[in-house]
């Protein structure tokens, strides 16, 4: 008993001391994070009716394009990324280290570099793009290019999170499932997938958020054409540079901010309501 009381007291004193020391700095930083967001919301309210901006062709085109491209990106990331994530979590194979580096690289690479690399590969004069061009297939500066750029920079978020999710499910479950007559695919579908589900959803949300905010790679590899490659982040820049009213940028920013908020909320809900806590 004495021991418990003592440790509690020491901890209380310790945290109190650090509270005084760290508190002000922490408050300052929280203020720094919140002020711009409050300002954005405030300007939105202040300029009154933003509906004119929100429904302009310029904004609607960007909105539609962002929605379509980011959804396609997410779907491809899930379909192609899930098997890769599973293999990385479960199997050892030659060159695994290289694959892991390749998957992680886009996370630390500046998106503009990704854009240049994509252009050099798939552009009309690109290493691979040359052959596509001969076949009458043009990728660069099309909506397809937007999706490829988003996929390149955002899929790693899904793959990494999904891999961690699969790793958290002990392979013993699959072994036991197989002795109960389940094929490997059924064991995956009924056991591994549901248990890794929260991580998969979290990874999907992170991936989608990153795709939605993609700018650098898209700008270089896909260009900035309204209705074709001009997603919302690109539209914000264009509105700025072309001297349009700042209200247009604010309207677009508010939409993206709202989307981000919804996604964060979703992430919280999903990770909290995991089917099982292990």
């Amino acid at each position, binding site marked *: 008993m004495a021991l418990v009381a003592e440790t509690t007291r020491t901890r209380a004193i310790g945290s109190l001391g650090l509270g005084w020391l760290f508190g002000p700095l922490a408050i300052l930083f929280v203020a720094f994070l919140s002020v711009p967001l409050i300002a954005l919301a405030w300007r939105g309210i202040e300029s009154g009716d933003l509906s004119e901006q929100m429904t302009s062709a310029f904004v609607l085109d960007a909105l539609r394009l962002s929605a379509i491209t980011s959804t396609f990106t997410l779907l491809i990331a899930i379909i192609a990324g899930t098997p890769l994530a599973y293999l990385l979590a479960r199997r050892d194979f030659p060159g695994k280290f290289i694959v892991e580096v390749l998957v992680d690289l886009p996370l630390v690479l500046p998106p503009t570099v990704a854009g240049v690399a994509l252009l050099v590969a798939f552009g009309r004069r690109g290493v691979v793009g040359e052959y596509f061009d001969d076949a009458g297939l043009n990728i660069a500066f099309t909506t397809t290019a937007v999706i490829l750029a988003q996929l390149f920079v955002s899929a790693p978020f899904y793959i990494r999170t999904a891999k961690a999710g699969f790793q958290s499910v002990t392979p*013993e479950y699959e072994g036991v499932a*197989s002795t*109960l007559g*389940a094929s490997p695919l059924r064991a995956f579908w009924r056991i591994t997938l*549901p248990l890794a589900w929260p991580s998969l959803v979290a990874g999907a949300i992170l991936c989608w958020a990153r795709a939605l905010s993609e700018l650098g790679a898209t700008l270089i590899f896909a260009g900035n054409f309204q209705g074709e490659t001009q997603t919302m982040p690109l539209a914000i820049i264009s509105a700025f540079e072309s001297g349009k009213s700042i209200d247009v940028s604010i309207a677009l920013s508010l939409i993206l901010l709202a989307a981000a908020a919804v996604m964060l909320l979703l992430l919280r809900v999903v990770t909290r309501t995991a*089917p099982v806590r292990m």
Partner: protein
Amino acid sequence: MLSIDFDLRVGDFDLQPTFESGDELVVLFGPSGCGKSLTLQAIAGLRTPDSGRIVLPGERIAFDAEARVNMAPQARGVGYVVQNLALFPHMTARQNIEFGLAHLPKARRSERTLALVDLLSLQGLEGRRPAQLSGGQQQRVALARALAAEPSLLLLDEPFSALDASLRGVLRRELASLQKRLGVTVVFVTHDLAEAYSLADRIVVYDAGRVLQQGSRADVLSRPTSRRVAELTEVRNIIPGQVDAYVEGVAAIRTPWFTARIRDPKAPIRGDVSICIRPEHILLVREGRESSHANDAVVAAEIIEDVPMGNTHRLYMRVEQPESREPLLLEVDVPAHPYDVIGVATKSHWNIALTSERCSLVSN
């Protein structure tokens, strides 16, 4: 008939088990890390041996390196309860049990599940997740799940190790009666001798990836064939000696402390041997009486420590002979009732009898 004979190498470890079993409860007994669990994984098909054969009950060849046969785990029809049970945490008890019944139509599935719930006394717990079940209940669900598809072979890897002693006893008895009722071959892994003793029809003693001895429970426990088996099965008293004579199945063994006459069909005829005798087979001889059997070796000994162990007393006794350099230390178990009746606590010098027919010989 289950027939195991294979070689499986994992890193530096070389597992080469060889044993057979009919429709009985066979216990794989041995120290931790001797390859018992690995053997189960290989039988279940989760590990592939490098060579050899695994034949499941019903003459079904699950693995044969030479004939290039390697049945997939899902085709083997083997129930397997792993050490930590691995109940699927996102499924209810009922869903766990039904997992192995996917091949049945829905009505048959419910019928079978109901029967298993009944068999293992899980009524009222069907809707609970594993985390909402007690250790013993989880254990029963795991057993029900493994039994669901009516396997011809049930593999159990230390399934009761996480439970408290009283519950372990209950589940052991249930398992033994379940095995008799279902007539299924059960391979049970444990490093706990008491568990092995209370469950086994047949014991397979493992050490360092090899089978040292196998046979009926009584045979293995009272007739170890090697010094290592005697040590592993906690014989406690392993007394070095020499064979003096061997006449008509009875060996005369001379030790520095006494001479014993032992009838042992497997007796080595000559040379250095050790007498193995369990603490419960050494008896205190009451004053003025003689040992009941002429063959029993009787020696004078002194109690140097008396440790109460619940319903028995373990006596640490010293045998001294003027001509031998060091004393012999023996462990003797005396049940609580005779302990009181003959008044063991009242004096420290006793004659003790080494029950001849309970002695066995191993070569040194």
